[in-house]
């Protein structure tokens, strides 16, 4: 097939259909994207258990137990880079409930879990932004992405310093769409997440290394200062739920 062959409508339409079918074939060979959500919503209601299903569940539980141990080891496996220059470590940002949640990490696609504890992890700045915009109360949700080493150099005008460190835009941590150093995706967007009051993450944790992360965040934070206009719509960290190994 050459470009010249596509100059009439029917040939072009045929080529388009063929292109689509090729893409379906590619997608068919990949791990499922939405199966986790589907299983959570549908398969959980299944009442009858075949012996094979029971065996699979036992195996899954065993894997989950081993997996949870591995997940808890991730920060230490990350090596010296996980230690922050300020003395804090990535481990320090993982509270006990976060570690418990990490025990049910779903399939990992492009380095980020698709679900954790059956809850979908939202990815991409547009999707995260839309979820934040749609948030009308302090119900939390999971967002996934990448911490970049060194973080983002933000110009912080002195005029902003009247804000407490918790609500200073310069104190936000950035969750990037892509891993740092991905040549194809230089300059991709990032979600800016406020660190919470009291601080729920050390800034150094988010800048010590390139690593995948899942955060639980919410809007309408109870500790928003009364005088800070628009604070209720700010995305605020609730907890670090999962930290992958440093790249």
């Amino acid at each position, binding site marked *: 097939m050459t470009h010249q062959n*596509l100059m009439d409508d029917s040939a*072009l339409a045929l080529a388009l259909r063929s292109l689509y079918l090729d893409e379906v*074939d590619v997608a068919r060979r990949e791990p499922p994207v939405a*199966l986790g959500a589907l299983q959570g919503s*549908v398969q959980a209601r299944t009442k009858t258990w075949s012996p094979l299903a029971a065996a699979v569940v036992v195996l899954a539980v065993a894997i989950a137990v081993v997996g949870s141990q591995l997940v808890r080891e991730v920060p230490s496996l990350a090596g010296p880079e996980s230690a922050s220059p300020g003395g804090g470590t990535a481990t320090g940002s993982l509270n006990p409930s976060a570690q418990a949640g990490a025990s049910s990490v779903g399939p990992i696609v492009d380095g980020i879990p698709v679900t954790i504890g059956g809850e979908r992890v939202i990815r*991409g700045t547009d999707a995260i932004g839309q979820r934040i915009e749609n948030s009308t109360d302090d119900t939390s949700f999971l967002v996934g992405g990448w911490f970049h080493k060194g973080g983002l150099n933000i110009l912080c005008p002195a005029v902003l310093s009247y804000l407490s460190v918790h609500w200073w835009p310069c104190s936000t941590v950035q969750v990037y769409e892509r891993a740092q150093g991905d040549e194809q995706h230089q300059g991709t967007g*990032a979600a800016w997440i406020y660190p919470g009051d009291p601080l729920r993450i050390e800034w150094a944790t988010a800048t010590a290394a390139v690593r995948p992360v899942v955060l639980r965040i919410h809007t309408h934070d109870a500790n928003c200062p009364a005088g800070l206009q628009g604070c209720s*719509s700010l995305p605020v960290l609730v907890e670090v739920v999962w930290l992958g190994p440093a790249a």
Partner: protein
Amino acid sequence: MQAEMIGENVDDRPVSSRDAETPRLRDALASHEPALLATARFLVHEEADARDLVQQTYETALRHLDELRDQEKLLAWLTTIAVRAALRRRTALARLIPRFMSGGFEPRYAAPDDTAIALRAAVRGLPDRVRVAVVLHHMVGFTVRETAVAMGVTENTVKSELKTGLSQLREKLG
């Protein structure tokens, strides 16, 4: 509202939410995922967005299963949900989340010949609405009417977008 849009164009056999528990519907939902992901990859520019769109589509679908009247049209129903979500997403501004210059998404799986690669790039370069019409009609196989319903426009608009689309594709490939 999503609930209203996905209830269009249906016949008289309601499917209850409990049907989702049946292996048949469950398998059908899962079996359409590759086609949906393939479509999503032509609807949005970023791989992460495509995957997110598929997840969002399934979540919406599961919440509105009661409105699915014809299981034979399950893929068309799912695709319509995805298209509407993609079009809405495009217009939504991500407040407080700066979006820096995007590097764009290059397909990870190159098609086997130069023409297919060029055609893929040409499709991705079409204006959004034109691209959606071309993807739905010429690639997924929707009729003009189904495409119009999915996009929320008239059939004449779809025909016009398709004409523009093929013309622009020829220009890009010429």
